[in-house]
């Protein structure tokens, strides 16, 4: 299953590590990068494509500088603020979805994060099948027989591009990249018999 990725921007080491340790303990969630300032935030967001970015609310004004960037529009759906002012907790304002206060109890933080993660996972689930489709099985069989993408495309009257897409999906579903690995899978699942291999 795809993990839900977080990027964390917080100057205070203690707060950053604390939040990261909570997130990393939640199933399907992981902190892909921790930053102590906004300096490299752009390249980080581009590189890791996180589902959520958590930023100290004191940095929000500075963050507005990135308004013109494409990444910002995405951020408006994914921001979570950290409030370390120790004032009674504020309601999240645009572009934030949620606010974590440093006064929050452990369970509060869990609940807030869990709700967001759950929502994200449900949206993802529509593309989550680990079973191969019939088409994918046919292609896997031909791959195991040693055929190239081009040969498979010709045989099935598909474009090479479509064959490549199918192969990517097969690899994503099974977690197997190499041809010999795919062949072993095909034999184990009776998609091909050993005698058929060249």
């Amino acid at each position: 299953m795809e993990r839900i990725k977080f990027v964390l921007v917080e100057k205070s080491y203690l707060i950053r590590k604390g939040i990261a340790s909570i997130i990393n303990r939640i199933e399907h969630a992981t902190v892909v990068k921790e930053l102590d300032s906004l300096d490299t935030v752009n390249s980080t967001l581009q590189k890791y494509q996180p589902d959520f970015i958590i930023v100290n609310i004191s940095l929000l004004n500075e963050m507005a500088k990135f308004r013109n960037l494409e990444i910002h529009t995405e951020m408006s759906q994914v921001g979570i603020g950290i409030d370390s002012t120790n004032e009674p907790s504020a309601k999240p304002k645009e572009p934030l979805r949620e606010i974590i206060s440093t006064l929050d109890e452990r369970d509060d933080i869990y609940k807030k994060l869990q709700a967001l993660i759950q929502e994200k996972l449900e949206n993802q689930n529509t593309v989550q099948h680990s079973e191969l489709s019939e088409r994918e099985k046919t292609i896997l069989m031909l791959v195991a027989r040693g055929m190239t993408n081009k040969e498979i495309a010709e045989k099935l009257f598909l474009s090479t591009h479509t064959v490549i897409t199918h192969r990517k999906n097969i690899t994503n579903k099974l977690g197997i990249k190499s041809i010999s690995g795919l062949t072993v899978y095909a034999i184990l699942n009776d998609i091909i018999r050993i005698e058929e291999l060249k």
Partner: protein
Amino acid sequence: MADVLIHNYTLLPVISRFNIKLGFGDKTVKEVCADANVNVDFFLEITNSFIDEDYIPQKELNSFPVSLIVQYLKKTHLYYLNEKIPEIEKHIHLMLAEETKANEKYKLVENFFIEYIKEITTHINREEITVHPYVLEIEEAFYKNTMTKAVYDKINSYSINDYASEHDNIEEKLFDLINIIIKYLPQAKSVGLCNTILTELFSLEKDLNIHAALEDKVLIPKVAAMEEKLLSLYNPS
């Protein structure tokens, strides 16, 4: 040094790669390295990359001579070929022997691994026969600051970028095998052996990843910069 190993036992095969022998009492890392004639800074860089896989590339690693890096790479090659891989192979044979004769499924694992051994051997041989002598030669020319026609022709016929582009991921296939055993094969009869094999595959995969990072992120950029400098010195006349 003892603290380092107690803190992270996966470093055990790494220290033997540096010819450091156990039984060093309470000596510090520096003392042990001095006794074994090991560059302590290089030792620390390598051990750090085992503890934190994102550690490479560090600027410090770039400051070491190519010959030192190559020496280490050769040592890891020996470790893979003479120790780790035969060990895994032996355990796979043992596991297979425990299964009923008709169980062709585990035969597939054996075949897969035998094929893998062939591949990794070819990969390593190519590095030792072609790549390592080449990078050492470039380094020598670089430090002498002299550019001859011979070196010029050499860079033009085989540059480090050729190696970079043909440098395939041998650790990828290993991960396929791990996945197949965990997800798609029925549990082996000998649970203990199966777990041993998986543990060994994981540790080999990690070692290979660090090995590849050292090649891709340190050795290749370093040699590429040397080539560039050398080519700029060349003045055909």
